[in-house]
């Protein structure tokens, strides 16, 4: 009798688990597919990165992720006026540092500002990279500032200088995707294997 009850209990639990899995896969088909379909996870990862890349290529990001010894400015990404130079520490040269003009907040006169204003190191220069190269570059710890993928996600989702892109002031436009959405996309990219888009 006791054995019969235990058997029924196990059966009931199994049925409940099966029903829960059914509900989960119905409600979240993509998530279920991740667990069961590596090819689909790869495709989703690559698609997530393509969306991420639209933000990384935005002038608000790319103007200071240059491969040059100077920053750029504006939506047309022209060379920064005033012969502004990168300098040895990516924050300008003696006598004309980034902080000579850029303070920690945007100014009423239109001069943009955020904490740590400066260029990304040359190793993080993204100009001219296709999606495949861009993803590889971001994952490469010898090029990305020795950041883990989790740290990359945190940087893109929460860094105060990155956040400036969505509060650029003076009528400047922001990336089409919000920073919160970017953070979710980076997390999705990581969770699905951080797959680089195929080279073309």
């Amino acid at each position, binding site marked *: 009798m006791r054995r019969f009850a235990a058997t029924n209990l196990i059966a009931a639990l199994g049925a409940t688990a099966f029903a829960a899995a059914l509900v989960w896969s119905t409600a979240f088909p993509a998530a279920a597919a991740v667990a069961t379909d590596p090819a689909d996870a790869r495709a989703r990862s690559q698609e997530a990165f393509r969306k991420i890349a639209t933000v990384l290529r935005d002038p608000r990001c790319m103007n200071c992720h240059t491969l040059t010894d100077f920053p750029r400015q504006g939506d047309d990404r022209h060379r920064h006026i005033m*012969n502004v130079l990168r300098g040895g520490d990516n924050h300008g040269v003696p006598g*004309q540092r980034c*902080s000579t003009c850029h303070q920690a907040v945007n*100014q009423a006169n239109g001069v943009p500002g955020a904490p740590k204003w400066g260029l990304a190191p040359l190793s993080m220069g993204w100009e001219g990279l296709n999606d495949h190269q861009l993803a590889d570059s971001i994952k490469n710890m010898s090029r990305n500032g020795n950041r883990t993928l989790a740290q990359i996600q945190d940087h893109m989702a929460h860094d105060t200088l990155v956040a400036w892109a969505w509060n650029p002031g003076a009528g400047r436009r922001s990336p089409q995707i919000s920073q919160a959405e970017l953070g979710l996309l980076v997390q999705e990219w990581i969770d699905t294997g951080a797959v680089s888009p195929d080279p073309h």
Partner: protein
Amino acid sequence: MISLTINGRLEQLDLPPDTPLLWALRDRLGLTGTKFGCGAALCGACTVHVDGEAVRSCSAPIGQLDGRKVVTIEGLAASVGKDLHPVQQAWIEEDVVQCGYCHSGQIMSAAALLAQVPRPTDADIDGALGGNICRCGTYQRIRAGIHKAAEIAAKA
């Protein structure tokens, strides 16, 4: 209340935190040697030193400078314990100035450069002073003046 050390003297400024440093210097403290040029960090006329670095005072809100050390053109010589800073001495010897309006900013940028690069090249000078505009076009004399200032400082 915002506290700034300006030319070695502690100043308490009861001003809104978004007040540009230039306004505080000129209108509140009477330090009119620092000039208003463009008001948008585009010309360099308002350059001062904040903790030794060149800063455009028109675009530096005082609320972000609390507790920091500011040196203006009035305090530059004293900041190196001289009657004239080497850059000021060189400016006189090379007769650098024409109308002079931009030159307090030029001198402050030059001094910030020399503090870190005692013997600058022409490229160093162009990089440091690219944001200091001179409508009289005295750029060649500014460059010569900075080289002269480097010589003066080396002999001191």
